[in-house]
C-alpha cells in the first residue's frame, strides 16, 4: 500500500454482500487481527429466515466480538455487527442502530442501500464502504452516496466475485476509490485500521 499516507481516517466500515457472501465475508474477515478497533457493520442478504445463525457462525471464525445489530443500541468500537434478517438496518446521526420494516429494496430486507446511505449521513468522510459478490443491484446507489459524502468506497473485483452482478452494478453507477480482490480489500482494511488507531 504505497499510497497509505493518503488514506483517510476512518471511524466505521460498512460491508454489503449477497449471493456468495458468506464465503467472501469469511475469507475477508477471518484474517483480521485480534483487537481490530474499527466497528464493522454488515448487511448480508439471506433467504428469508426468521432467526439467523450468522452471528454464531462468524463468532467462531473471527477474532472480533460479533453481534446482531439491535435497535437503538450504540455502535461500539472493535465489534462486528450483522443486520437482522427481515428488517432494514440504518445508522442514526448519534451512531446508534435503528431497524425498520419499510418495503423491500431490490427484493431485499435488509437492504444494503439503506445501511450505506444512512451510515454515509452519520459518518460522512470517516466511513469506508465495501461492496462484495451478489446477484442483484442492491448497494450501488448506497455506495454512490457514500462517495458523494466524501467516504471511501471499495468494490470487490468482479473477476474474482462469485457472482459479479452486484460489483458490476456499482461500477456502472459510480467509479469507486478501489476495485480489489478480497485479499487486497483485507490489506486495505488493516491499513485503514492502523491509521485510525
Amino acid at each position, binding site marked *: 500500500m504505497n499510497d497509505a499516507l493518503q488514506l483517510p481516517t476512518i471511524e466505521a466500515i460498512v460491508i454489503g454482500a449477497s449471493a456468495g457472501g458468506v464465503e467472501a465475508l469469511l475469507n475477508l474477515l477471518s484474517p483480521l487481527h485480534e483487537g481490530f478497533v474499527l466497528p464493522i457493520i454488515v448487511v448480508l442478504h439471506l433467504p428469508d429466515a426468521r432467526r439467523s445463525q450468522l452471528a454464531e457462525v462468524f463468532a467462531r471464525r473471527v477474532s472480533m466480538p460479533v453481534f446482531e445489530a439491535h*435497535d*437503538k443500541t450504540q455502535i461500539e468500537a472493535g465489534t462486528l455487527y450483522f443486520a*437482522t434478517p*427481515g*428488517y432494514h438496518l440504518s445508522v*442514526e*446521526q448519534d451512531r446508534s442502530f435503528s431497524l425498520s*420494516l*419499510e418495503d423491500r429494496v431490490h427484493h431485499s430486507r435488509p437492504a444494503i442501500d439503506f445501511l450505506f446511505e*444512512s451510515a454515509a449521513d452519520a459518518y460522512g468522510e470517516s466511513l469506508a464502504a465495501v461492496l462484495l459478490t451478489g446477484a442483484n443491484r442492491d448497494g450501488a446507489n448506497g455506495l454512490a452516496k457514500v462517495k458523494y459524502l466524501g467516504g471511501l468506497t471499495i468494490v470487490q473485483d468482479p473477476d474474482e466475485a462469485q457472482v459479479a452482478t452486484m460489483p458490476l452494478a456499482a461500477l456502472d453507477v459510480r467509479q469507486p476509490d478501489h476495485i480489489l480482490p478480497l485479499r487486497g480489500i483485507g490489506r486495505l482494511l488493516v491499513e485503514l485500521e492502523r491509521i485510525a488507531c
Partner: protein
Amino acid sequence: MERNHSERNSEIELRLLIEAIFLKYSYDFRDYSGASIKRRVQHALGQFECATISALQEKVLHDPTAFMQLLQLLTIPVSEMFRDPSHFLAIRQEVVPLLKTYPSIKIWIAGCSTGEEVYSMAILLREEGLLDRTIIYATDINPRSLDKAKQGIFSMENVRAYTANYQQAGGQRSFADYYTAAYGYAIFDKSLCENVTFADHSLATDSVFSETQLISCRNVLIYFNKKLQDRAFGLFHESLCHRGFLVLGSKETPEFSGFGRQFEPLVKQERIYRKS
C-alpha cells in the same frame, strides 16, 4: 464544499418540515428515528414532484389534502396477519390461560395500522372463547389506515401468506372460515370486530384512555427514538392493570429503556412481557 452545503441544507429543511407538521397539524414526528423519516421524505419529494424539502413544506402547510397524502408516505403501513407465528402461538399457550381468569378483558392494540394485528388477535381470542368478553381498542395516528382496518378487506394474494402464518400460529380451523373471497379480495367476518373500537391515538402526544389487561404494540417502537420509546412504555405501564401483559415486535424490548425494571419477560424469545 458544494455537497456539504446541500446536505446541511436538507438536514435543516427536514427539521423545519417536521416542526411545521407538528405546529400546523399536531402530528409529532420530532422523536421518530431520523434515518427512516429522512428516506420517506426523500421518497415523498419524488411523489410530490418537489425539488426541495422546503417546497414540500410550503405545499403541505397550505394544503391539508396534500398533508394527508404526505401522512400516508410518512406512516408506511407494512403489516401482516399472524406475523411471527410463534409469537401468537406463545400468546395462545402462555397468556390466554391467564387472561381466562379475568371476567372481562380490555386489550389495546397500539399502532394497529391497517388492522392485520387486530384481526389476528380477534381470531385467536374467538378460538379461545374469549372474544365475547373482550373489548379491543385499536389505535393509530393515520385515519386512512384506521378506515381500512375497519373495512377488513385484504388482498387475496396477501391472505394466502397469512394462511400459512395462521396455521403455524396454532390456528384451529380453516383460515377461510374467517373471510369471504370476492374479486381477488378477502372480506373478513364483521363479527370479529363487534367489540373493537378503532380510534385515533398518538403515542407521541396523547395520554392513557383506559385500564387494560393486555397491550400489543408490534413493530411501532422501532420507528421511535429512545425518548419517545420511553414515553410509549410509560403509557403502557400506566394503562396496564397489575400484572398486565405487554407484547411487542420480534426486535423490540423494554429491557434497555427507562422502564426495564417495570416489565419482566414472560416469554422473552417471543417478546411477551408482564408488568412487574
